[in-house]
């Protein structure tokens, strides 16, 4: 039963990798990489139980930590480097982008 779950997670990893390769925008690739990281955590956990050594869960914890920090770091790089303007994302004048209200009340500073 662990083998079936591990196989399903492997198939899902392949599909997410395909989306990471053919995603039209850079945000699709970031989303796919995030999903690959989550599925890798699941795969490591299931493989630890499959081989009868649940000590693999330490590696899964480390992978979950690194995945989140890596995604946030890539997002910062894309937003503030010149990486976002080179893909298929067309830049919109800032008045057109509808933003969520930042805090309560005072939004204009």
């Amino acid at each position, binding site marked *: 039963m662990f083998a079936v*779950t591990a196989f399903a997670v492997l198939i899902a990893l392949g599909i997410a990798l395909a*989306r990471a390769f053919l995603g039209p925008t850079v*945000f699709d690739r970031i*989303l796919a990489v*995030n999903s690959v990281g989550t599925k890798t955590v699941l795969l490591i956990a299931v493989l630890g139980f499959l081989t009868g050594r649940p000590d693999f869960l330490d590696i899964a*914890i480390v992978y979950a930590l690194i995945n*989140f920090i890596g995604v*946030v770091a890539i997002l910062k790089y894309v*937003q503030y480097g010149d990486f976002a303007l080179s893909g298929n994302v067309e*830049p919109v004048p800032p008045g057109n982008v509808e933003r969520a209200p930042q805090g309560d009340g005072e939004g204009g500073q």
Partner: protein
Amino acid sequence: MIGQLLDGMSWLLLLAGAAFVIIGAFGMLRLPDFYSRLHPAGLTDTMGAGLILLGLLLQAEAWIVAVKLLIIAAFLLFTSPTASHATARAALAAGLRPWQTPKSGGGAPGQDGGT
């Protein structure tokens, strides 16, 4: 008896989690634009990971294994909505427009016939 019950429940949870992971992956491949692809990614992160980790939790023998599984589940539950929200906000701030149906009253929203 109780061991067989735990095994059956664990198998059910693992199979349901595997089904959610597969469905989320296919949705991430098939849906038309980025903002709609966020939804199956969240499905994988919450239901798929939650059910698989819960199914593994029923198979844990030592208590430290159960604690590690709970730590992983709690961490995924905290970080994956945060990462999805940050990704969506970054895409919106970069000017990526949400996909809309070609005719505003149109029926099937798929690219090629909706399948």
